[in-house]
């Protein structure tokens, strides 16, 4: 098994990767068997060196707690990380992540999960007064950077990432996702291009509630990395996709940008197109490009971004990676190939290819109490 904190040699390989996303705007839950079936149609887009899923709405009983998924190389890594966790968090529940012994995934790290919240009297309060989210981010960065053989791969509330080295359909069986229910799912089939296929390097990449699956290559990685490091993000996972997750965290959670504006930072319109816009829009987009030039993603990409409020799927600005979307009732599907969607939704109401840089944004319908009952808006 590849060690989680190994020094990898960097090799190049030809590109592929496949992705899928399913969201029900009314938060109707479905099992992981659906997205497994969809992503398995894209089997040949990967090479067995990475598969993974993000699911939202799966931890209803612990919805207010941060659900940490951690992979360990060995038990001593586990005990040293757990010492940190016990000092800083109230752990309501912890257990081994359920896996299937009969699956095709034979070699794997120790996989453990913790449902917890930061202690109110934790030691770092002596130095600063971080909010819970900020403290969780700091803890994830700390563990991933400094604890050898340990890697936090999920840290959100009422959501979880399940990933590893293998084809995605095998990873789904390994984590028994047929038995897991959620109202939003994303999936990834990896064909590593510039960085090694290892357990931590499989997609999705998550931080708090943010999750990213990505097909492509972020050629702006260097400038994005240096920009994020100024805001104390540690980029330790040896893969370009990581920057997208942290950029979303920075823009939306820290800087308060809307999802719509954040997507305009990542895939900013070209200046030649901005020049043709009306004054108000021109001013806004010029300001975004000037302020967030270092957060712009260059290079080919298709991404599916999940967060507690919904899902975003988008392409790079000149559409160098495939992306198809479809709707059927309250469900929206996105995938690298139409066939993946048709495998689970043979006759969608609508099928389309989103334009370059134009995000598909689906938000959950807010449930509001009205006359003593809860209805959808």
């Amino acid at each position, binding site marked *: 098994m590849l060690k989680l904190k190994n020094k990898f040699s960097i090799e190049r390989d030809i590109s592929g990767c496949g992705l899928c996303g399913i969201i029900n705007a009314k938060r109707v839950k479905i099992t992981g068997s659906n997205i497994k079936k969809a992503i398995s149609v894209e089997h*040949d887009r990967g090479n067995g060196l990475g598969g993974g899923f993000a699911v939202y709405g799966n931890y209803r009983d612990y919805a207010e707690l941060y659900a940490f998924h951690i992979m360990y190389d060995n038990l001593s890594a586990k005990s040293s990380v757990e010492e940190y966790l016990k000092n800083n968090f109230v752990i309501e529940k912890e257990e081994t992540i359920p896996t299937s012994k009969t699956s095709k995934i034979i070699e794997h790290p120790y996989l453990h999960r913790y449902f917890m919240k930061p202690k109110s009297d934790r030691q770092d309060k002596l130095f600063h007064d971080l909010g819970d989210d900020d403290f969780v981010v700091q803890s994830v960065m700390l563990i991933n950077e400094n604890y050898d053989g340990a890697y936090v791969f999920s840290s959100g509330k009422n959501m979880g990432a399940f990933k590893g080295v293998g084809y995605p359909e095998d990873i789904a069986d390994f984590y028994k996702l047929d038995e897991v229910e959620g109202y939003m799912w994303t999936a990834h089939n990896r064909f590593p291009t510039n960085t090694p296929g290892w357990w931590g390097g499989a997609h999705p990449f998550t931080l708090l509630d943010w999750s990213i699956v990505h097909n492509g290559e972020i050629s702006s990685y260097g400038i994005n990395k240096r920009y994020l490091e100024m805001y104390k993000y540690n980029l330790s996972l040896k893969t370009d996709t990581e920057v997208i997750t942290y950029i979303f965290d920075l823009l939306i959670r820290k800087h308060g940008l809307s999802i719509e504006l954040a997507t305009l930072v990542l895939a900013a319109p070209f200046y030649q197109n901005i020049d043709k816009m009306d004054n108000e829009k021109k001013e806004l987009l010029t300001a975004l490009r000037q302020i967030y030039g270092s957060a712009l993603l260059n290079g080919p990409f298709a991404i599916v971004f999940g967060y507690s409020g919904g899902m975003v799927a988008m392409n790079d600005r000149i559409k160098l990676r495939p992306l198809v979307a479809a709707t059927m009732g309250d469900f929206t599907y996105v995938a690298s190939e139409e066939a993946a969607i048709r495998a689970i939704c043979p006759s969608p109401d609508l099928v389309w*290819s989103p334009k*370059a840089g134009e995000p598909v944004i689906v938000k959950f319908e807010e449930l509001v109490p009205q006359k003593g009952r809860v209805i959808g808006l």
Partner: protein
Amino acid sequence: MITIDASGMHYKDLNKLIREGIGRGIKKFFLENVNGQYYIGDGIKGDDIVININGVPGNDLGVFMDGPTIVVNGNAQDNVGNTMNAGKILIKGDAGDVVGYGMRGGRIYILGNAGYRVGIHMKGYDEQLPVIIIGGKVGSFFAEYMAGGVIVLLGLNDTDDTCSDYFATGMHGGVIYLRKKIDFSKYSKEVDLYEADDKDTAFLKKYLLEYADNFNIAFEDIMDKSFYKIVPSSARPYAHLYTSA
């Protein structure tokens, strides 16, 4: 004639069945429940072979194909007719990105829309004349680096612009015909626009009659407008990119 149920079948097995069938002298293939299988009709030969597809065929449909006809009764994915040499691909729905990449002969007729980079690096020589006809609209980078052949963009159903940015960028051979005049500011600086003349119309008529017949639409409805013709300004637009003239 043979019917193949392709549900759950890997593309290698499906293509093997097609090749074996052709070897046994079968001329007509009906593929049912196709969903995402790549390379259907990869490199096959025979002008009298017809493959009828129900479902969504995967990427690189008809890649390197040399003679047969493929009919898709719905949508197709990316890279339709990649480096195709001869034959015909009919798509009754939409096609994905990169239709006819490096295509060097044959015809691709699409009733609906096509994605980005239609006809990129398409080429023609002597009697080799690849032709792509799109009924709907197309994405950006239409006819990028086009070196030969003919692309016809009809824009039958759309009131919006039928094409997008980077139109015919780097085009240095071949002809584009448009049924709708488009916003000239979107053209690349490397092409010139003309009104189609009688010779063009005669050429178009030959292909559009077949197109209308294949898709069962009225030929008169297609020809109800005068066409525009786009040709490259230069056969070597980048001849002096790195050197002085």
